[in-house]
């Protein structure tokens, strides 16, 4: 495996895990459910997409052929993350989850 492919795989792995970590910190630290929904719905999906791109590059360069199986997971996650975020927000609105108020 050439050095540049290795650098690219390492770059995508680092960027992906950093985005996933940012999303999880957002899930842990935000004060309100509707704010907490932002981290996992966007940052974590992007991070996992980067990790899957890294996996695709790695296996394509290792086996001397194009391997794009990971696009299936990426496509499915990109389709399913907005749907699940929408369902969660709908359930939270219906359950009257408390929102964060800066004044009190």
């Amino acid at each position, binding site marked *: 495996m050439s050095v540049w492919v290795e650098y690219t795989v390492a770059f995508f792995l*680092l960027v992906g*895990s950093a985005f996933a970590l940012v999303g999880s910190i957002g899930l842990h630290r935000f004060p309100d459910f509707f704010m907490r929904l932002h981290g996992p719905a966007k940052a974590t*999906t992007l991070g996992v997409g980067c*990790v*899957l791109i890294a996996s695709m590059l790695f*296996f394509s360069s290792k086996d001397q052929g194009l*391997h794009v199986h990971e696009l299936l997971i990426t496509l499915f996650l990109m389709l399913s993350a907005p749907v699940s975020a929408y369902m969660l927000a709908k359930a939270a609105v219906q359950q009257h989850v408390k929102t964060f108020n800066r004044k009190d």
Partner: protein
Amino acid sequence: MLTAVIYLSMLMFGISLLLNFFRLLRGPHAVDRILALDTLYINGLALLVVFGILLSSRLFFEAALLIALFGFFSTVVLCKYLLRGDIIE
């Protein structure tokens, strides 16, 4: 170099799994717990893919795909249960 980067990325995913687990334990409302579970399975899937790169084995791809499918399905079903109080009407 790639091995060190893979270990660093596994460490970061482990920290994010721990943070999600704290939210799963603490979450004031049931919706928070469902969101934490959703994030937990997505991060676990990514950790599995990174582990597959480390072992350079393509065996973990099917497991990651199955986790993605069943996790999305379980999130939708739990949300439906909260919304309607019933899953199959």
